[in-house]
């Protein structure tokens, strides 16, 4: 006999790093419908942004997320610079790439660690986060802060990386890269791990496109979609190569993130090697923004969109944030429908949910 039950998954759950509730309608062990309930950490940041000076909003944008914070400030600055027709120095573009990619590495290591924890591989979780510490140390040494860097500004960046610091960064990256193969083999080749990931939470390519999936979730399904290909900041000069999966399951989403770790390491090395000498910022002159723009960059979780609309005063008319997790929620609902209850934690973790930035 089929019994139908509704199970609330979250907002407090051992595998969820942030609060989201999933209402799971079950038939025995199978999920037949999933609905999200958010709103636990809505902070009204878009409203605050309208009340602040648009320069102060750089500070605010950086605090949308506590994981990929630098990229939020970078996207905001790029949007304002486009509106005010500000050309930033080339060196600032390279420095932005370096800090953005360190954020991508630490974010990917964070979620891979949480994934390991979700299927009970605590030792792997701790070892991945130990490596992540070295990336946080790089950020601390180069900016003075470990996560909220506070170095991006309209017109460039606030700190430079000296040749000595560059050498230190390269040494640390080498050390990180040496430790990765053993850890990644545990994630990608271990029999038990494969049993939990392969064929679980499948999102076909056409569905990923239709549901607006972004980032590693979309790329694991075979969609060639990475805004770094457009060459914003200094990516156009760094021989960036996109990582794409095929199967669209939890295993491919993990594999894409693992390979992107190596891509990011290469990008930082190339950026340090090719970074031109020169100033790191320019004075921003002219009227406050009076037009509108949709600024976009590629975050660790996917495409981040900021709609910025000025009105010629120092207050913005509208600042709207569409984070990658918000875009990936419909894809998550699709993946959950038809799966077993025991697979929910792994599927949820594999979209790398960041709820605080989703709710703003």
């Amino acid at each position, binding site marked *: 006999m089929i019994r139908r039950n509704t199970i609330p998954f979250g907002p407090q759950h051992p595998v969820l790093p942030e609060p989201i509730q999933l209402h799971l309608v079950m038939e025995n062990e199978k999920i037949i419908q999933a609905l999200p309930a958010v709103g636990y950490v809505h902070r*009204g940041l878009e409203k*605050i942004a309208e009340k602040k000076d648009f320069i102060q909003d750089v500070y605010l944008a950086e605090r949308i997320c506590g994981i990929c914070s630098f990229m939020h400030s970078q996207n905001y600055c790029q949007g304002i610079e486009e509106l005010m027709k500000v050309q930033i120095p080339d060196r600032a573009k390279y420095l932005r790439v370096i800090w953005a990619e360190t954020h991508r590495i630490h974010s990917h290591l964070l979620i891979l660690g949480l994934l390991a924890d979700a299927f009970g591989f605590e030792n792997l979780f701790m070892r991945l986060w130990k490596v992540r510490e070295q990336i946080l140390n790089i950020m601390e040494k180069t900016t003075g802060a470990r996560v909220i860097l506070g170095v991006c*500004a309209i017109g460039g960046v606030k700190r430079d990386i000296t040749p000595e610091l560059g050498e230190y960064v390269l040494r640390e990256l080498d050390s990180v890269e040496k430790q990765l193969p053993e850890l990644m083999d545990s994630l990608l080749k271990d029999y038990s791990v494969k049993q939990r990931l392969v064929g679980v939470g499948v999102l076909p390519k056409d569905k990923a496109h239709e549901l*607006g999936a972004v980032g590693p979730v979309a790329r694991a399904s075979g969609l060639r979609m990475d805004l770094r290909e457009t060459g914003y900041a200094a990516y156009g000069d760094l021989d960036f190569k996109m990582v794409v999966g095929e199967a669209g399951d939890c295993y491919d989403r993990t594999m894409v993130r693992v390979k992107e770790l190596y891509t990011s390491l290469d990008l930082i090395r190339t950026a340090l090697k090719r970074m031109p000498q020169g100033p790191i910022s320019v004075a921003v002159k002219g*009227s406050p923004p009076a037009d*509108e723009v949709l600024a976009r960059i590629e975050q660790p979780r996917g495409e981040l969109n900021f709609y910025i609309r000025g009105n010629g005063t120092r207050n913005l008319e509208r600042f709207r944030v569409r984070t990658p997790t918000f875009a990936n929620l419909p894809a998550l609902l699709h993946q959950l429908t038809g799966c077993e209850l025991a697979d929910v934690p792994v599927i949820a973790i594999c979209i790398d949910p960041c709820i605080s930035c989703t709710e703003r």
Partner: protein
Amino acid sequence: MLNNVSETALDHISTEVWKLKQDGYRFVTMTCCDRGESHDILYHFDKNYQLKHLRVTLPKGTELPSVSAIFFAALLVENEMKDLMGVSVSGMAIDFQGRFMLAEGAPVTPLNKSIPGIGIQIQDKTPATPEGTVKS
């Protein structure tokens, strides 16, 4: 700047969105701006990194037809607009009844301009001169 924007009549929005889907566009998101007497609704789409936008001017009190039957992904942002801006959206695939983003007892339509904001000192919107210099 926002290029490639098409001003679209409210009655035609579903048709235009459907055409874009047939053309292979991906739904990116929607944006709602409070413009006093009306809401500005922007639909953002992407194809091969090229953005396309549809703009609808929605007089306040008018219903916006949902496009979630065309792009399921639109249902979340439509529910968000309903919660935060008070936009009435008809025909949503799932209607969270105003409880998608906001809890009971939360301010109603907090992102509308008529709501001053809670605990925030509103600054004067001092106009800048064309020669004005902005220091960051």
